[in-house]
C-alpha cells in the first residue's frame, strides 16, 4: 500500500542474540495504521522474540525500532511511556491473579493513565460488554475459562487506548472449543481498524484477518506478502514446506 504518512511502526535491521545464538537476524519491516500483520513460521523461528522486542520486553542487540515517531530504548527510564501505546496479549493471558476481571481492566487506567475511578469503571464495563463478558465483571481469573481470561486480557489492553496491539499466540494455550470466541473478538478489532501484529498458528484465521503476512524461519524473514499470495502461491521453498507441514495435520 502506498502511503505518504510515516508508518506507525518502523523496524530497522534488528538483531537479537541470546548468548551465541542469533534469534533475530536483520529483521526490517514497516507497519501502517490499520494494517494487520500476521507472522507465521515454525516454532523457534524468532516470531515471539520479535514481538517481545517491539514493546521492549526483550532488549534488541542491534538495529532500531521506531514507534509513532519515537525510538524504543528498553534501557531508558521512559520505556514504559512507549509501552502505553503498545498493547500486548500473552499466550498465557497473565491476568493479575489477585484482581477481578473489572479490576484487571481498571488498574493500569488508574495508575498509568491517571483516570478517575468512575471513568476507568465506565471504560472497563464498556470493554467487557464488547468482549461478551458483562456477566463476569466481579469474577477472579481462577474462576474464568481460558477463553474468558484471554478476552479479559484483550479488554485490559484495549483500555489503554493502544495504537498498536501485539498478539503472541493468543489461542495456543486454549482448549480447541474456546479458540473461536477469542478469534471472533480479534476479527472485530481488525474490522474496527485496529493496527495489530499477530503471531499465530491458526492459518485460516491468518488468511482471513491479515492485510499482510510475514513468514519467518531460522531468525530471518523468508517471505512476505498479501495473504492470498503467501497461502496460495508462495515463492520460497521453505514457505511451501512449512505450509504443507502445518496444513497436513
Amino acid at each position, binding site marked *: 500500500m502506498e502511503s505518504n504518512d510515516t508508518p506507525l511502526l518502523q523496524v530497522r535491521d534488528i538483531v537479537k542474540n541470546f548468548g551465541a545464538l542469533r534469534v533475530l537476524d536483520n529483521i526490517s519491516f514497516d507497519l501502517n495504521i490499520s494494517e494487520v500483520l500476521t507472522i507465521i513460521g515454525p516454532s523457534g523461528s524468532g516470531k515471539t522474540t520479535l514481538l517481545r522486542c517491539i*514493546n*521492549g*520486553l526483550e532488549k534488541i542487540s542491534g538495529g532500531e525500532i521506531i514507534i509513532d515517531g519515537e525510538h524504543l530504548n528498553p534501557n531508558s*527510564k521512559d520505556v*514504559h*511511556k512507549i*509501552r*502505553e501505546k*503498545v*498493547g*500486548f496479549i*500473552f499466550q*498465557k493471558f*497473565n*491476568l*493479575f*491473579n*489477585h484482581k477481578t476481571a473489572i479490576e484487571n481492566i481498571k*488498574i*493500569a487506567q488508574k*495508575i*498509568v*493513565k491517571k483516570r478517575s475511578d468512575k471513568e476507568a469503571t465506565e471504560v472497563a464495563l464498556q470493554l467487557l460488554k464488547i468482549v461478551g463478558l458483562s456477566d463476569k465483571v466481579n*469474577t*477472579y*481469573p*481462577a*474462576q474464568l475459562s481460558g477463553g474468558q481470561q484471554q478476552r479479559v*486480557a484483550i479488554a*485490559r*489492553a484495549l483500555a*489503554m487506548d493502544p495504537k498498536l496491539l501485539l498478539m503472541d499466540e493468543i489461542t495456543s494455550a486454549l482448549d480447541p472449543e474456546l479458540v473461536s470466541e477469542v478469534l471472533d473478538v480479534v476479527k472485530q478489532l481488525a474490522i474496527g481498524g485496529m493496527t495489530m501484529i499477530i503471531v499465530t498458528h491458526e492459518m485460516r484465521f491468518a488468511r482471513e484477518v491479515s492485510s499482510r503476512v510475514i513468514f519467518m524461519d531460522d531468525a530471518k524473514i523468508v517471505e512476505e506478502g498479501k495473504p492470498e499470495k503467501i497461502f496460495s502461491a508462495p515463492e520460497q521453498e521453505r514457505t511451501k514446506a512449512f505450509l504443507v507441514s502445518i496444513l497436513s495435520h
Partner: protein
Amino acid sequence: MRTSKIRVFNTLSWIYVYIIRGTPLLMQLFLVYYGLPILLGYAIPAFTTALIGLTLYATAYLGEIVKAGLQSVDIGQKEAAKALGMNTIQEFRYIVFPQTLPLIIPNAVGFFIALIKDSSLVSAIGFMELTRSSKLVIARTFQPFTVYAVVALIYFIVCYVMSKVSQKVEERFDILYGK
C-alpha cells in the same frame, strides 16, 4: 538482597544466611554474648545481647521467606504490568507485592511461633525471660512440675493464638482470589 542482581550483595547475603541457618541459635547467642565484649572492649547487658542475637537469627530466616514470596510471583505477572505501561515501582506496589502476601504471612507466622519457643534459649545467657523467671519461682516454691506446666501453657496460648490468626488470614486470601 538475595534476589539482588549485584554480585557482591548476593554473595555476602548468601554467606550470612548460610552461617545463621547452619549453626544452632544457642551457639549464636553465646558467640554474641562472649564475642561482642571482646570486639567492643566493654560488657553489654544480657537484654542487648539477646536482642542482637535474635535479630541476626530472625533476619536471615525472614529474608529467605520474603525471597521465596517474591520468587513465587510468576514472571508473566510482571511482564503484563510492564506491557500496560507500569513503571518498576508501580509494578511492585500494585502487582507483585500483594501477591507475595498469601505466601509470606503464613511462613512468617510459622517462623515467629518457632522463634517464641526458641527465645527460651536466651535464659542461658542470663536474660530474664519467661523460662528463667520460672526457674526463680521454682527455687522459691519447690514445685517444678506445676510451674513448668504453667509456663508451657503460656507459650502454648501465645503460639496457638498466632497460628489461628494466621489461618484466618490464609482463608481470607483463598476466598479473595477465588481458590
